[in-house]
């Protein structure tokens, strides 16, 4: 019976609010009481709903802008032993809202499927995720000046961890070492020799540094990995991002793994995911600073940034650029460019937004300026 009463309100009240009522209801409640409660909740809800014309955008800007002065500027921050250095505070907030393409500390949180999320082989997975250069497999390099060869002692321990075989290493190396021959002396020793006739020794010396930087395995772009335990599961935090490649790995839980690079998310997961990630990242920054801002303000910024279908930053290249009014654009930055471009195409300004009406000393179409009264005035 009570379900029927709830149903009556599904159109009138937001689902979350109804859920809350359901959760907080005493175990025994008569239908009459429930009706009374829901009626009271509805009344309260209607009293709390925003008024038409409310300038929610400006309130949002104020709510985020005002505590900006209280945030720290310290780029790097140490949060205990097991976390990495992350950009936080104001610089990170600016980064997010600007929708920067390159961010200062790109990171991923790689969630894992069972049983890996319980810590099984977590170190091996972490090694697999990390971008590895040949450098890390080398124990020692010696150059034979007489023979013009370079012999490389491989690091067995390291190879054992990721199950790397010497033959495979040679294959990978050969691809990027044109003009050199590679020979396997034994399981842990390689010999590199130049195939050119002239000055083979010089070539060997030159290749000594180059060979160290050759990409062997792992996910490109991931420079650092850190397995951590969060709650009762293990996950891997990485410095450097490559969401596309990470999501292809079979151990990875693709439903929760995220990167903090908005553009990457946009490419791999789409614009809705970007919106969600903007919200999460902003909340993360604000919480770390102990600043309370209502979620609705953050939602509004995220929605504004993503409404066009691609990410637009809060800058003269992003949202401001797409404003319909010439004067609104001109009042922000680079006024001359906007005015001249407008004159070329004969652009019309419909004076629909705030700033141009301020300029012309007219009421702004917000709040009390929104409703108009039309009446005949006696001459």
């Amino acid at each position, binding site marked *: 019976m009570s379900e029927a009463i709830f149903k009556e309100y599904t159109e009138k009240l*937001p689902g979350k609010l109804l859920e809350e*009522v359901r959760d*907080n209801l*005493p175990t025994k*409640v008569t239908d009459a*009481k429930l009706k009374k409660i829901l009626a009271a909740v509805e009344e309260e809800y209607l009293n*709390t*709903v*925003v008024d*038409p*014309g*409310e300038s*929610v*955008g*400006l*309130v*949002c*800007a*104020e*709510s985020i*802008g*005002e505590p*900006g002065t209280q*945030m*720290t500027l*310290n780029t790097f921050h140490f949060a205990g032993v097991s976390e990495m250095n992350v950009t936080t505070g104001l610089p990170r907030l*600016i980064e997010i*809202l600007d929708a920067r393409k390159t961010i200062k500390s790109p990171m991923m949180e790689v969630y894992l499927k069972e049983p890996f999320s319980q810590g099984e082989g977590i170190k091996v997975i972490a090694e697999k995720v990390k971008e590895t250069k040949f450098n890390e497999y080398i124990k020692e390099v010696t150059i034979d000046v007489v023979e013009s060869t370079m012999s490389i002692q491989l690091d067995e321990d390291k190879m054992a961890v990721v199950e790397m075989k010497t033959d495979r290493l040679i294959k990978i190396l050969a691809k990027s070492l044109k003009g050199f021959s590679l020979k396997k002396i034994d399981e842990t020793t390689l010999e590199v020799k130049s195939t050119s006739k002239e000055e083979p020794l010089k070539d060997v010396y030159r290749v000594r540094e180059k060979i160290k930087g050759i990409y062997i395995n792992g996910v490109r772009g991931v420079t650092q990995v*850190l397995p951590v335990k969060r709650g009762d599961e293990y996950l891997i935090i990485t410095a450097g991002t490559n969401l596309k490649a990470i999501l292809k790995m079979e151990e990875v839980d693709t439903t929760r793994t995220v990167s903090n690079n908005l553009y990457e998310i946009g490419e791999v997961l789409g614009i809705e995911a970007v919106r969600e990630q903007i919200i999460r990242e902003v909340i993360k920054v604000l919480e770390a600073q102990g600043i309370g*801002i*209502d979620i*609705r303000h953050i*939602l*509004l910024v995220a*929605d*504004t940034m993503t409404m066009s279908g691609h990410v637009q930053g*809060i*800058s003269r290249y992003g949202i401001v650029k*797409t*404003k*319909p009014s*010439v004067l609104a654009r001109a*009042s922000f930055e680079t*006024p*001359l460019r906007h005015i*001249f471009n407008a*004159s*070329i*195409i*004969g*652009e*019309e*300004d419909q*004076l*629909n*937004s705030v700033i*141009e009406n*301020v300029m*012309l000393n007219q009421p702004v179409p*917000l709040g009390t300026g929104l409703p108009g009264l039309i009446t005949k005035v006696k001459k």
Partner: protein
Amino acid sequence: MMSDNQHPVHSYISRLQFSFMSPKMVKDLAKAKIVTPELYDKEGYPVDGGLMDIRLGVIDPGLRCKTDGQRIKDSLGHFGYIELARPVIHIMFVRLVLDLLRCTCCSCGRILIPQGQIKGFTDEIEKIGSTLGANEQRARISEIMADLRTISKCPHCEAKQKKITIEKPTTYLEDERRISPIETRTRLERIPDEDLALFGINPSAMRPEWAVLTVLPIPPVTMRPSITLESGERSEDDLTHKLGDIVRINQRLFENINAGAPEIIIEDLWDLLQYHVTTFFDNDVSQLPPARHRSGQPLKTISGRIKSKEGRIRHNLAGKRTNFSARTVISPDPGLDINEVGVPKVMAMKLTVPERVTEWNMAYLKDFIKNGSAEYPGANYIIRPDGKRKRITDETKEALLEEIEPGFLIERHLLDGDVALFNRQPSLHRMSMMCHKVRVLPGLTLRLNPAVCTPYNADFDGDEMNLHIPQTEEARAEAEILLQVQTQIVSPRYGLSIIGCNQDAITGNYILTKYLKLPRNKAIDLLSSVGIEDFSRLPNKDVLTGHEIFSMALPKDFNFKSKPRSDKPEHIEAAVEIKNGMLLKGILDKNNLGSGKGLLLRTIHKQYGADRTVTILGHIYKLGINSLLRYGFTMYLSDTDLEPEAKEAIENLLGDAKATVQDLISKYRDGTLEQLPGRSLEETLELRILEKLNETRNDAGNAVLNQGKDQSGLMVMVNSGARGSNIQVAQMGGIVGQQALRGGRIEKGYTERTLSCFKRGDLGGAARGFIGNSFKTGLKPHEMYFMAMTGRDSMMDTALRTPKSGYLYRRLANALQDLKVEYDETTRDAAGKIVQYSYGEDKLDVSRSEGGKINVKAIIDANV
């Protein structure tokens, strides 16, 4: 007829269109042709055909404009023009002209796209323009143009196309040969209107050849007034200077051409003319030396006047100035109501409120006139129905009293109860400008209740604030209904009250509800000093507890229960319970009364509304202060003294810390230190040491705090949350602790050491910024030095942060200012595009919610 500020508005500007002035338009618009660089004749009268020609408007009092016959201020001014001897390129369109030259045929003027494809492209661009907007359109056009550049044969007339380059700033070259502006212009003239759409040019707004100027409009004199110096000398505006240069060179060029001078001389003059015209428009062109005054300071020409923060747009158009405003130092006055502002009498006699004379208030208003402008409360001006403004002086007083009749406006002095807008910069949120009721007070500062310091972010170390007096009924109504302090109690940032008790008000209520018991007569004295006069609810006892006294400030049917902050006994004791307006248990501290915290004030606000909350808050605030007044409150230096046990405990802690750190270091040196995952050995050591030292600081702090000195002034302030923190107490009495720089211990300084008083490689606590002394015992020299390092670091941080966050705020405000909730409950931007289908997903207004939510529990409790 209405007076000057009471015009009914019949019409608004509904749209603006931008376009480019054609040479014909320039000539039609012009009222005079300027032919001579001379400004004034011997008598100082503007020369006809000169730049100050009185047909262009007047700036001298006494002269009349020849065009409209008006005097200075009434004449808006008129444009003139000059005929350029040779055409010059308009600097702002250099890029556009270059693109046009490159993408059209040099002989037939058609765009370098075969006839068959033109329509396809035009349609595409039009479609992009109408669906995605001008930006996308511009992007697509430049893509198309990039492709056209490389075409070497005209698809229309088969003419060979040469490569066109630009020699900055204004010279076009075709295979090293210069294209003169004349030739440029003829080429641009050849481009047919139909092809222009492909370049994003609207032929009705601009023909490309207009970008090569043949006539130059001369702005009106009123736009570039000269100023007369003290010496009687005239100093001309920068624009006049620049125009003088242009006219002078132009005349010389004319003369030389007419005299048949050699081509080189003409070319030189032509280039010079180009330079002057260019710098007239923009004096910041990167390839040109800016035109300067004789003093060497660059001229501020047209673009300089428009752009930047001090330019026309941001300074004059988007920023407004106002009359009827005042500014001075602020000081606190807890005797005022929260929504009042104390205005000095001198200000009240300058700031006025216009009141319309009617039959009914005539006598009332005449009293003000009788007092005149020098006596309070008087009036300064009367405004006749025809808009004429007359000052009230002792001489005119009598005549004005006679003259007055319904319809007149009297600008009377500010009175108690008038509405005023009160503001403190930086105005970061809407609570930075609130409406207060005026209270005219003696003294010379603006006074405010200290409870509203939080929303303004004000203190009294010399802060100044601004006061504005609304002048129309609409403005007053809006201020009173929407901006008054009580309407702003709940912050729209997080839905909790931003106005609350602070400082002594918190300490006072804390002491009142924790320690005080008063005899009945004293309790009544205290309550009535606060303004509470209803004692019917006061229990009939000889000695009253603080709880009972405090309860008198609450409404009699108020129920409230706060959640304890934790399970600690002192927190459970402090949890507040109010039933039927009586405080049953708990201690009133910052968590209940403070701003931005606790739900007590928020609940009162919800139940009893804004006006009642202001009264209750006012009572509670004064109750706190007056309790302190009676109880006496101070902080002694001895509050930071240590008991012998605490002293010993701290010494032990320091010794232990030193030993542990030494142990860690020797382990590190031996290589027996266990490495933390994902860390190098050095990092591990640093982290472990830091951990130990912070632990020491905390333990030492606890030793100081747990001395049983809870009744000392210092601890009362800290525990009530009024001022100071546990850490600060620990730093004063115990030890200051580790100084952190960039998230770690201090490492900077000399080679392998921070200061020369330490051994090289010393990794111990003291050598890396650990301060083992307290502020009271005093710091050792090296400790002071470390403190100064972190002090400077945090100062730099603040100094760099302010402009950064200011810019972020400006961008946010600019990007979001047009968003509003529509009548259909969607959130939309200025173009009407939907940003959110329902605001914040549930349409809740944060400033009406309780912490961003609807308190479902309370509703259920109330209805079960």
